[in-house]
């Protein structure tokens, strides 16, 4: 199936006043209709910047310096601002991390949903209201008629995130970018939201880019995975492939760091399980190592890793990793 969104070799820099520092350096991603791409990494790895570049909403001082973002044959980087506005919230929409703050506190739910419909579909009044109501039903908000007139503060966190999803879905977008959509929510609510996204995706064939730091969420939601580290995509491939056979030391490290819940019979052995570590931390902007960016934290790193940027090595079907040592993965953790 043709990708609905294809990001190729995306480069983003930030102007600090003294110099332009690289934030993203050659990130390539593909989204397929009806499928979910999980984008994982620690904070500061460039996940959100990838999303905002795609939306054309990079903050001040940040700018795309290379590559292309192709939405159904249209290069978004070349699109004029007016065209981008037409696409945003329409063909491509976004769900943000903090449902508490991502909704305008002074506007009703109806207004905030109807607004996109009015803007992109030219529907007004009762028609827009009807669509807003329909969307609330779609995101399974109880007694949706009453909720139309509600303000965000009158809704719980989970409901607010449902409203955000309703807004994102109102114009039947081809692509939804969900930036850590459940991080701020409780686990039981997180489960509900993931379930909702899955169900909606099955109905609409929307492609989802799920940005998360949680490999568990990736395992649950994603079909494909891209692992970002310090502005580079270090590994990508199908979800089962990556989780069962991680081919980059960073991915392996993340797997090892994540505490596992051991239930039932397995609980007995949980106490003996140690927790893996990745030493150090993600380097701050502007201090990315020149060669392999992970080398300073990598157990496998040797002189070459510190001297030469690693190549993209195939590690399986549709699976590739940016590492000199894909063959030595067993040695990690």
């Amino acid at each position, binding site marked *: 199936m043709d990708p609905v969104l294809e990001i190729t070799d995306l480069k983003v820099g930030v102007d600090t006043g003294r110099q332009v520092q690289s934030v993203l350096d050659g990130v390539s991603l593909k989204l397929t209709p009806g499928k979910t791409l999980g984008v994982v990494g620690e904070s500061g790895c460039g996940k959100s910047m990838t999303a905002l570049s795609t939306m054309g909403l990079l903050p001040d001082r940040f700018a795309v310096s290379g590559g292309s973002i192709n939405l159904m044959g249209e290069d978004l980087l070349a699109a004029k601002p007016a065209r981008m506005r037409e696409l945003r919230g329409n063909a491509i929409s976004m769900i943000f991390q903090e449902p508490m703050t991502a909704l305008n506190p002074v506007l009703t739910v109806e207004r905030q949903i109807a607004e996109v419909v009015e803007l992109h579909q030219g529907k007004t009044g009762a028609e827009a209201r009807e669509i807003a109501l329909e969307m609330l039903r779609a995101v399974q908000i109880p007694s949706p008629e009453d909720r139309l007139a509600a303000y965000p503060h009158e809704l719980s966190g989970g409901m607010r995130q449902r409203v955000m999803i309703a807004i994102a879905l109102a114009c039947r977008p081809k692509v939804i970018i969900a930036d850590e959509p459940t991080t701020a929510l409780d686990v039981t609510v997180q489960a509900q939201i993931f379930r909702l996204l899955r169900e909606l995706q099955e109905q609409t064939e929307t492609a989802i880019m799920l940005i998360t730091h949680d490999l568990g969420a990736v395992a649950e939601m994603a079909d494909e995975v891209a692992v970002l580290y310090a502005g580079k995509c270090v590994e990508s491939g199908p979800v089962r492939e990556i989780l069962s056979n991680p081919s980059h030391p960073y991915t392996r490290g993340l797997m090892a760091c994540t505490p596992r819940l*051991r239930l039932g019979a397995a609980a007995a052995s949980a106490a003996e399980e140690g927790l893996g570590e990745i030493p150090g931390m993600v380097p701050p902007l502007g201090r990315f190592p020149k060669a392999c960016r992970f080398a300073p934290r990598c157990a496998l790193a040797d002189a070459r890793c510190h001297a030469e940027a690693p190549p993209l090595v195939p590690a399986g079907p549709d699976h590739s990793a940016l590492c000199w040592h894909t063959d030595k993965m067993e040695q990690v953790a």
Partner: protein
Amino acid sequence: MTPLLDVQDLKVHFPLANGSTVHAVDGVSFQVNEGDSFGIVGESGSGKSTTAQALMRLVDPVAGSITLDKHDLGRLEGEALRSLRHMLQMVFQDPYSSLNPWLRAGQAVREPLDLMGLGPARGRDKRVDEMFRAVGLHPDAKRLFPHQFSGGQRQRLCIARAMVTEPRLIVCDEPVSALDVAIQAQILNLLKKLQAEKHLTYVFISHDLAVVQHLCTHVAVMYLGEFVETAPTQELFANAKHPYTWSLMAAALSPDDTTPSTERFTVTGEPPSPINPPKGCRFAGRCPFATDTCRAEKPPVKTFAEGHKVACHYAGELTPPLPELAAHAA
């Protein structure tokens, strides 16, 4: 053996401006033995942080008792309370706001010693150096200001500060939830290592079952101000009996488990407000097993083997909807 910490029927309520009351913690009892780490797990609004603050006497309980090593912590005031503070310390959730931006790292760690007049003044610097090393920081970093540290390093500083008075009990309030997964692992390992080395006792607050399972010896599951299930860690994760515990377990995600969410056990709705908690079982409104009894009557606390306590009318009678638990039970 007398427990180090004995909490009986602790209640913390907050009055609101409009006359109603938040029942943040509503009758919680537990004991922690020396060297154990007691985990309290729950969602936001469950009252787990308030419990921690009540233990520290940062909020005042309206009822119940807190006994720490025979001292009646819950009733002491003023100087008497202050003189006991060195026995229990706290690590906070947000490493950014828990360090005074105006104090250098060394001063921050030394501050409790100075305030409580612990040890000879000359020896304090040495003690601070010791603590820096213990948490994996170089003593040279003493002269830096908090904003010059990363989040993980700040949390190390906080741990050093909490341990500098050689407390009997450390209350950790979500100490890793603000950190990235790789750093979280570092801090968890550090806490575990220090506990082993110094024979510390923890009360560990978290929303993450996996973290609690990893670190704690005992676990209490909290919902709307009450403990719904308490047990030694292994027992709890092998034989959880409360539907709420199941829902938490089912919702926990693991990279090893690619079961799609649509096929998992989920509960509906979100926790109700602690202002007017439901009359019967507080979880009844979201529980798929709830009956009219649940909605009308407060469930009794049933005790099972190994001190496994469950507050559910049907505890032990229901079949767990999670395959692992069901398999284990069978």
